[in-house]
Every structure is written in C-alpha cells, then in structure tokens.
C-alpha cells in the first residue's frame, strides 16, 4: 500500500468526474495549493491532499511503517466510481449548489444510515436529475452526508410522503458505526 504523488493526467481524470457532478471548478477550489497523493489498496485508490512541504517526509517512504491517513482525505475510487470522503463534504457544501435539506427527524434517520423519504425533505436544489449526488444538510446548514437522488428534483413535490427521494451514500453516523 505505497503512496504516490498523483500525476497530472490522473488528477485530470478525478477533476473531470467531480466537476461534472458538482460544478465546474469545484475540484480546483477544494484542492487549493495542496498536493494530491494516492494510496492503492485491494479495495481501490484513495486520494489525499497534503502540503507540498511534506515532500521531505514522503521521499523517505516511511520505512517499517504503513501509512493509514495523511493530510485531508479527498475521496476514493472504488469499482470505477469516485466518492468524496466524509471529511471533504463540509467544504464541498460551500462550493456546490447541489443541496438537499432534511427535517430533524430525517436527519436522525439519515445519520443512522437510512435513505431519505419525501416527508423528510425541507428543500432541494432545483434542476437536478435522478442519480445526481447531493450534499445532505440539516435545517441549520450542518453537513450530514452525501446522497443520490432517486427522482428528478422537479418531481419530488408530486410524490407521496413515504416515497424514497434519495439514497444514502455516506453519512456522519458512520464515524460511530465504524468504530
């Protein structure tokens, strides 16, 4: 599980995938002046953003030690699909309009790993298509996780209260469930 500085070509691929879903320039804003580093594992590739000052440490290869995390975890490519890390979602919410706001009850259910029903939806960004990924927020603007719409956002108003609106992809309850 060695670390590698991500090549320009590979980063371009990540950028295209992310920007296509969350808006032009989102990847560049999130990256800032940090350097992308990748770690391959059996499950896929994880991307991290680190300070370029850390080149001096990375060059030493961490002999006798196995890197588990460094800097900020940007996301992972698993089975060919990119998924943001939970810790990036707080920043992502500020640079993308793709939000879905849920009620208090919906927030509770979502952070227990449940998907989102129509009755929990307080607000959703307009013009989003089915399968679009959205950042899930509570009414105070706190980030709860990431979900994938199961219907076009314009159709949500017409659904019954118990109909599925968005599938849970990642939620902050995972921090506790995964311990």
């Amino acid at each position, binding site marked *: 599980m060695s670390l590698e500085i991500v090549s320009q070509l590979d980063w371009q691929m990540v950028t295209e995938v992310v920007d296509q879903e969350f808006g032009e320039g989102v990847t560049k804003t999130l990256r800032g002046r940090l350097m992308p580093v990748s770690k391959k594992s059996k499950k896929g590739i994880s991307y991290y953003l680190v300070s370029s000052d850390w080149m001096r440490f990375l060059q030493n290869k961490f002999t006798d*030690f196995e890197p588990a995390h460094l800097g900020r975890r940007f996301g992972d490519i698993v089975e060919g699909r990119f998924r943001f890390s939970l810790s990036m979602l707080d920043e992502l919410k500020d640079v993308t309009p793709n939000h879905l706001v849920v009620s208090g009850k919906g927030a509770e259910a979502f952070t227990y790993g449940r998907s989102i029903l129509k009755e929990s939806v307080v607000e959703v960004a307009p013009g989003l298509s089915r399968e679009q990924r959205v950042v899930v927020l509570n009414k105070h603007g706190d980030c709860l996780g990431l979900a994938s719409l199961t219907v076009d956002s314009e159709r949500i108003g017409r659904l019954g209260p118990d109909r599925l609106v968005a599938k849970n992809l990642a939620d902050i309850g995972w921090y506790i469930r995964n311990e």
Partner: protein
Amino acid sequence: MAEKKRKQRAKELAKEFGYLPYMTERYLALWGEEETLSFLEACEIAPKTAIRINSLKMPIEQTVRRMKRKGIALKRVPWLEEGFTADFGDRTPGSLFEHLFGHYYVQGVPSMTVVKALDPQKGEVVMDLASAPGGKTTHISQLMENTGTVFSIELDRLRMRSLVNNIQRCGVTNAIALRGDARKLDGLGVAPDRILLDAPCSGEGLIPLDPARKRSKTMADIRYCATRQDELLDSVIKTLAPGGVLVYSTCSIAPEENEYVIDSILGKHPEMKIIQIDQEFGVPGYTQPYGVSLDVSLSQSRRFLPHIHGLEGFFICKMRKEGDR
C-alpha cells in the same frame, strides 16, 4: 507497619474492596493505611464525564452555547481553556449531533492535560505515539491550529481505524497516521520538535472507570509494561531533535511504571532533564516511593490521584533533550 501486619491488612482490604492482594499491599507500603483507604473508597466513584471542545470545527464559545441550549451543563476545567466537565443528563455523551460533527471529543481531564503539558507550537513537527483512538492527536492538531505536522503512530490495526475516524471527524488536516512499532522510529528519518509518549501501561489508574482492573493485572504485567515503556523511551529519545521536548505519561498510578522508569532513563540518558510543567494541577511525582530514593527532579513530574482529585489516576513527566533546536 510491620511487614507481616501489612500483608494481613492488605488481604483484608483486598477482600473488602475486591482487589488482588498484591495491589493493596503495595498501596499500604506506598501510602500507609489512611491514604490507602481513602484511595480505595475514591475508586468506587466514577469521575465526571469530560469533553474537549474542538476549535478546529467551531469556536469554543459557540459550541458551548449550542450545547447549553440542548441542556448540557458544562463547567470549565481551570487549567484547560478547551476542557469541560459535562453533565449529559439521561443522554450518552456520544449521542448528540455535535459529537458527530466533531465539535467535541469525549476525553478524560488527565488525557487533555497531557497535551497541554506538551505545549505543541504552530508549525512544529510533533509525534504522538501509541496514539489510538486519537484524542491526543486531535488535541495536538487543535493547539497547532492544523499547521506543521503531527505524526500519529499506532501499532494495533483495529485501533488504527478509530484513530483515522477521529482524525477525520475532528477536521484534522495536519496529521500523518502511520501503523507500526514505535520502537522502530529510526526508519522514519524524522527528528520531531516534540514527542508525546502516552505509554501502554497496566491501567491501574483507570480503576474508577473500569472496576475489572482491580483483578485483571498481575505484578508480572506491571513488570512487562515497565520493560516495554523503557524500550519505547529509548527509541523516542534517540529520535527526538536536540533541544526537543518529550512528555511521558501513563494512566497508571504504579511508581514501577512511572517514577522508576523515568529514574532509570535519566541514568541511561544524561542528555535528558526533567522540566517544569507550566500548568498548575495534580500533586508532585514521588521521589521516595516505597522508601526508595529516586532522582529529586521527579518532584517536577505530576500525578493525578482519584482520592485527591476525583479523576482517574495519571502520571505526567515533561523532559527536554540537551542541545539547540
């Protein structure tokens, strides 16, 4: 107290409070009857829950207001700006959304105090050893305001998962978490400005939190831990930059894992000197435990004791390596 009489009294106390006899015998030799009784009684009471407010996610006062609105009673720990004892009423400390958001970390007061004693500065290279589940790593990053570099090193694969979770939950971005044996730090090629070694120990200070520890560890376990602690310190001292600061701590009250270990290290490493901890807390470390004379500078180390402070037992010693940084 004569040895025979002490052994007899130790057996009686061990039976009454549910300890292994070797433990109460050591307490009697260390403290005498009155203080031993006071200690044993204090260990029957769990310390208050404490939390550290994480300013990496939100300013401290804002989180305090938010939690008070939810009915959580908070009281600041005098020597810790970010540390509070907390009454969650009928809720569990980890059940609030603010916990999931990383606004606070449930952590004992002594564990927070260790990091305060380390006093990490912005831009430095700091190493936290035996670091899972990450309370101290995330606290170090908080005090460094996510600048510099924190090497967080843990051997246990399962505990590593909690460490990484907590790093991410708390918004830490200046940490490098590595799995490996802290006795092999040479391979990293890093000379940190500060190292925190909260060493694996018998946990004899945690009896107020976990009564099972009254009977779960033998004297052989304490000896094993002391050997391991000595090896870890040897490795750490070699790695520390000249002029660098080392904080050694354990959640054990046993002098065998604390003052004895440090006394031996001071003998082997004349370049290491104990220095004063800036914060006012606890009581001085022992210089004559069980009547054995140790380095007098050990009085600058600090102890938390359940019967004096109402907290879990802890030992903290701050040292500096000679040389210029």
